[in-house]
């Protein structure tokens, strides 16, 4: 098994595949007079494409657009401000994935409130936050629930644990997002014409392959589920472009050793047990109906939005173009602030903070000069 996994990032194999991707993309060009436009939905793909050098190597052959799959980046400013404000509450411990620490709020970041003595803790799993709640019975512990289908079951698992152990001082501030509604939204918006989607490998663990059939059946758009190593990325590009040439939209599972047809039942059940579909605000897109998950009423005692009154001033307006970037309309260098006022050390928008944000990926991995 180890040898197989090693092969997935084998440099010589990648180079061979790279040539094939270019070949098939050039056939597309010959046929359509333009490059194929592919969107990688997942932020980890964005980062993997940039970091491995695949994006750079294919840039003259395939137009690869980063999609809305960076959880931090798609979170709207008001939600971010509210989550940061939580840390200013008396007696509250805010637990979060590390990704949120440096995200700029309208006034400050969690990193800054922490340095002012607020209790903000980075955890690796929401279950760790439940543990912290048990160790600190006199405090309120809030977990910042950002993420897509891969992460929502983990949030469910933490609630289940809190119920089992009777932990009353634990809650989640839900800002979760779902993949299907945003794909539908982007396609119907029609701002960018995407020929095919590279579908998020790890979300698919939970949802399963069949979940994406709507792309093929309702929109006649192909998609491919793929892994994250260079060989997997390149195979994904090749097979998707190949599929475009055939003219027949298909949903291909190129990650079948990890992703099943129906997904992970335990995870799906955990989502359904505690949460229900809800309207959710997205950065740059406004509220999209039924695009996220929130607590079912019977579990509202774990709902941080109910537990705490958070008042925040109106979100600060900046020239940040993250909203347009998430929608795939522009590439980071088209933002006037990119690499000038906005850099990873001093980010202005979330896309420059999260390592899988398009701006950070571009700045860190695509700059030649």
């Amino acid at each position, binding site marked *: 098994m180890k040898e197989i996994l090693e092969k997935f990032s084998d440099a010589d194999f990648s180079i061979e595949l790279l040539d094939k991707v270019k070949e098939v993309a050039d056939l597309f060009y010959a046929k359509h007079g333009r490059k194929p436009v592919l969107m990688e939905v997942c932020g980890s793909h964005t980062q993997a494409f940039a970091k491995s050098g695949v994006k750079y190597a294919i840039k003259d052959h395939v137009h690869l657009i980063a999609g809305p799959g960076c959880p931090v980046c798609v979170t709207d400013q008001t939600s971010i401000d509210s989550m940061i404000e939580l840390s200013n509450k008396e007696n509250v411990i805010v637990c979060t994935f590390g990704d949120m620490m440096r995200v700029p709020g309208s006034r400050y970041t969690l990193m800054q409130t922490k340095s002012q003595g607020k209790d903000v803790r980075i955890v690796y799993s929401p279950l*760790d936050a439940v543990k912290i709640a048990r160790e600190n019975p006199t405090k309120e512990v809030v977990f910042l629930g950002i993420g897509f289908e*891969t992460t929502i079951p983990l949030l469910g698992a933490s609630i289940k644990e809190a119920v089992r152990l009777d932990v009353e001082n634990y809650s989640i501030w839900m800002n979760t997002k779902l993949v299907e509604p945003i794909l539908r939204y982007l396609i119907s918006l029609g701002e960018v014409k995407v020929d095919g989607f590279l579908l998020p490998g790890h979300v698919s663990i939970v949802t399963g392959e069949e979940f994406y059939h709507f792309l093929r059946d309702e929109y006649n758009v192909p998609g491919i589920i793929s892994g994250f190593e260079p060989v997997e990325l390149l195979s994904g590009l*090749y097979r998707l472009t190949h599929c475009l040439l055939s003219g027949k939209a298909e949903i291909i599972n190129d990650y079948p050793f990890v992703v099943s047809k129906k997904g992970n039942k335990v995870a799906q059940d955990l989502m359904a047990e505690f949460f229900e579909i809800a309207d959710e605000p997205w950065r740059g897109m406004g509220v999209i109906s039924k695009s996220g998950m929130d607590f079912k009423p019977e579990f509202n005692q774990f709902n941080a939005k109910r537990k705490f009154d958070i008042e925040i001033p109106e979100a600060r307006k900046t020239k940040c173009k993250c909203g347009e970037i998430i929608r795939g309309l522009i590439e980071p260098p088209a933002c006037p602030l990119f690499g000038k006022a906005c850099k990873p050390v001093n980010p202005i928008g979330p896309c420059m903070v999260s390592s899988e944000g398009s701006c950070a990926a571009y700045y860190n991995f695509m700059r030649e000069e």
Partner: protein
Amino acid sequence: MCVGVPAKVIEKEEYQAVVDVMGSKMTVGIIFVQDVKVGDYVIVHAGQAMSIIDEEAALESLETWKMITEAREAGGQSPIGESNPVVNR
């Protein structure tokens, strides 16, 4: 969206397992993969094993990808046909 790392299960308890990622170890939850066995490889996300990597399927995928590199697309001819082994796997 979600960082996922392949890891080998080296010890298993009821709800958690110790996994090895290239020599570094950590304890992860296994609620999503309860029938995982010692020796299996899993994908770990935020402290939970999310999926067991199916070795046979992985090998098959590798074969498919190798076929891509062997596919002949030279000679100015479009190789894309119904019979292309890569597309119609």
